[in-house]
């Protein structure tokens, strides 16, 4: 497979379309260079960047993906360092406290800010009190370049908690961002397999952290390890791995 995408590759080769940073998004496929009012609107996701000369360049190495709904294009890649993006759910640790904000470590270069009133039903008189070291499941409300990301622990449209908030007990496992994204898939294989044997609660943060809570420490450890091990396994290997782990317990 060639690593440089050309127009021909795009049309002829089925299978994954690998792009490297600097590769141009083929204009014919995306309908990008069609001028005028009939030109389709395209939406760019992570890994793609519009250049000054009206071309679109990949800025990450990965698989180029396209969705007909909304004509969306993005690059699916894997990395370990998290870069905040608005609307994503993340798991963070409170590292500092000021009058107006909590400082929360979500794995980005700068700690994120969480307003003390950004919780369901919080008022100046009645608001949750978090200690340093507390674990939070929250949503990124604002992520601008060169600024600290901002967080909230509620759904902005309804004002309800929607599962966001402090996570009590349990354990956090650190995984790659690609694996975290795959775990969010409701059809995720490893989670389905584990669910057949053990009951557990979990929260997956897009920043590569999963929170696992089950009735015993042994179960939690097993789940964490199974998830970590599953990253590069296919269906068959994954089933065997989970079976072995459960048997050993």
């Amino acid at each position, binding site marked *: 497979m060639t690593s440089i995408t050309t127009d021909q590759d795009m049309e002829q080769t089925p299978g994954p379309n690998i792009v490297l940073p600097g590769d141009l998004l083929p204009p014919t496929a995306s309908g990008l260079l069609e001028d005028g009012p009939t030109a389709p609107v395209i939406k760019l996701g992570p890994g793609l960047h519009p250049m000054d000369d009206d071309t679109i360049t990949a800025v990450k190495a990965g698989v180029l993906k396209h969705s007909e709904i909304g004509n969306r294009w993005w690059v699916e890649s894997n990395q370990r360092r998290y870069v905040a993006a608005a609307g994503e759910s993340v798991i963070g640790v409170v590292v500092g406290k000021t009058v107006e904000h909590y400082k929360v*470590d979500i794995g980005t270069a700068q700690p994120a800010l969480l307003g003390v009133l950004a919780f369901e039903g919080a008022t100046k008189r009645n608001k949750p009190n978090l*200690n340093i*070291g*507390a*674990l939070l499941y929250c949503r990124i409300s604002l992520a601008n370049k060169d600024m600290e990301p901002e967080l909230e622990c509620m759904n902005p449209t309804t004002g309800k908690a929607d599962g966001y908030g402090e996570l009590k007990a349990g*354990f956090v496992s650190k995984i790659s961002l690609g694996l975290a994204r795959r775990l969010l898939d409701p059809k995720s294989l490893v989670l389905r397999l584990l669910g057949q044997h053990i009951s557990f609660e979990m929260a997956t943060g897009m920043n590569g952290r999963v929170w696992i809570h089950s009735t015993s420490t042994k179960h*939690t*450890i097993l789940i964490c*390890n199974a998830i970590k091990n599953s990253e590069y396994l296919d269906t068959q290997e994954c089933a065997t791995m989970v079976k072995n782990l459960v048997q050993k317990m």
Partner: protein
Amino acid sequence: MKEADPSTNEREFLLQALKDGARIDGRKFYDFRTLRLEFGSEYGAVEVQLGNTRVLAKVSCEVIRPYTDKPTEGFLTFNTELSPMASAAFEVGRQTDEEVLVSRLIEKAMKRSRALDTEGLCIVAGEKVWSIRVDIHFLDHDGNLVDAACIAAITALLHFRRPDVTVVGEDVTIHTLEQRNPVPLSVHHIPICVTFAFFDNGERMIVDPTFLEEQVKEGDMTMTLNVHKEVCALSKAGGIPMDLDQILQCTRVAIVKVTEITAQIQAALDTDAKKRQVSRK
């Protein structure tokens, strides 16, 4: 930037798990993580992987003039580099306390245990000696840098071959690798570090702590031994006080680990030597 402390949840879970007799990665208390040794194409280049901790060691040599008070002694220097590649907590050009501690420990384990015969590095007394330099690069930090670095350093020294020299009167000829087979360094013994971490006022003790375990631990101790059951160094910088019994217990555990690791290093060196012989034919 300091690496953020783990959350209260993680801390409490880890301690609870230890009380239940389990570790986060499914290991037993006295288990090392999987150790992998890989040799580079040149002599003296070794990459060590201990779980997710990765260390690269490279040995090089040059001919220099010895100190006047020790005319027959060669030099052995260690150079450690904790770059931001290993962890975001490390900065370029600024030594953290951890870095100083790690490099001191390695020097103590290797140099002061006289693992390498420095007298054997002499070419012409008072005129020319070999200076051996070991560069240790930390590529990924998941706890227990000392043990990984120590294994990398000694394996690299064992793997290294210096150019052969002939001395006729005052004339010194250094043969290139093509002219003559290079010669190995004379290593007296193989010191191996084993690090212990203590929890619950020293009630619980584990071997080869991961990064999270290092963050939560109450105290630690690094023991350096060789297969002949000789303690080369023992370092305990702060932390909780310990009983004599516990230290003796540590040595008993350590000697088992040292035997295992030494055997693995020897096996890896033998396999590499065979591979090189085949490729030369």
